[in-house]
């Protein structure tokens, strides 16, 4: 069973994907096997996902990401935290990102969240 995603986690794009921005669209391109069933399948983000993704810089915790978005969009941080955690969890389950427990562990994979 998958572990819960913590607000203290730091989220970075997986080494198994390449993220490209083409004409303002973020496209996540799998490099390694097992992320998509059919080669040639890609991922794209809707505006909300795009806004969150831009903040996932491998430095900020998810809580800090939500807080930054809260300021940008003038919305309650608690509401945004729910979206950010759900988004990070969905990305993690597709192996598009790697979650680390906290900033100190950035650069090493966190086995707690391994699929």
């Amino acid at each position, binding site marked *: 069973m998958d572990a819960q995603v913590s607000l203290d986690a730091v989220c970075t794009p997986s080494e198994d994907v*390449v*993220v*490209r921005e*083409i*004409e303002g*669209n973020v*496209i*996540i*391109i799998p*490099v*390694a*096997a097992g992320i*998509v069933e*059919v*080669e*040639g*399948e*890609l*991922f*794209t*983000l*809707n505006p*909300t*996902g795009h806004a*969150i993704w831009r903040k996932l810089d491998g430095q900020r915790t998810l809580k800090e990401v939500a807080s930054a978005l809260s300021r940008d969009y003038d919305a309650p941080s608690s509401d945004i935290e729910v*979206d950010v955690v*759900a*988004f990070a969890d*969905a*990305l993690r389950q*597709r192996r*598009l990102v790697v979650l680390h427990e906290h900033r100190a562990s950035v650069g090493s994979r966190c086995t707690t969240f391994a699929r």
Partner: protein
Amino acid sequence: MFTHFEIHQFPLWDRLREKRIPLSFDLELTARCNFNCRHCYINLPADDVQAKDRELTLEEIRHIARKAVQMGAVWCLITGGEPLLRKDFPDIYLLLKRLGLLVSVFTNASLVTSEHARLFKKYPPRDIEVTVYGASKETFEQVTRRSHSFEAFLRGLQLLLNSGIRVRLKNMVIRSNRHEFDEISSFCLKHTKDYYRSDPFLCLRNDRDPARNAEIRAERLTPMEIIAIGRSERRSVAGQPAAGALLFPEQRDAPDNALFRCGAGQDSFTVGYDGRLRLCSALCRPDCVYDLRRGDLSDAWQDFVPAVRERCSTRTEYRHACGRCELARINLCRWCPANSYLETGEMDRPVDYFCQIAHAEAASLGIRHSRSDRHQP
């Protein structure tokens, strides 16, 4: 907040095409090949030292590919020659993958090692396409002119398939293997990952070598044989329900002296093994290629390529023949300025062989068209 989709479904493509972004490019890693196929338009001997010395280095490929990605490229086809002849193939392949390109590979499979299979397994290509030159050792090696090539092909293909790598097969139909067409088709159907295609159209040599061109011409099928293949498969041009539709609708009203009615240099280009950019794999006329070792890809794309595409014919014969021919504007005719150059040395001369095929296919499909002056009885 995120969705996955098949690359061709992405609504962005139409917008990107309008902006003339180079979405895809072919990368010829080498012109050398361990086979010596009778019909090949490019192959040089595997031990050709001069050709090897001219090949792009890994760093040069990195520079060109990175620039292409910056300009918007999404697809890259690695081809040759035989690309697996390059010892640094795994490095090149991974480099392109890690740039975020969707990479396809054309190979004859004979040099596939377990290392290659592991590489493709871990980092899957979008497609691997392998041509089946014969269903028997005798026929296969009649085409490739290399002893033991059939066993090497089978071994390499099996290595890929046993590793769970799905391969698309292709049936290159030439005079030397025509008698095995049904067996080759069955082989393709049995092992291909989704569909297979039969290709009976042989281009002449990029280097215009007269002796090799004579061999290619000797391998060409007759127009009626080509049409029969289309009928039997319903995969070729003649078999497609859309046959007769305009391939490039914007070209419907092109003036009769316009040469380029195709997509060459519109959203794709080819990088030759020696770093020379071509609008397509066949357009080899010296004043239509751009040396990327001396210039920059963006300059080539923004300035050089459009200037080539704007070239027109001043030849009356062309304007009254291909320039006006409706079949030259739809997907029934293989004529193009690149093929014209390879066949005649000029980019604006009709090619009888293509005319015969196109008109025979049009007749076969019941497509009515106004005949150009050239074809008036």
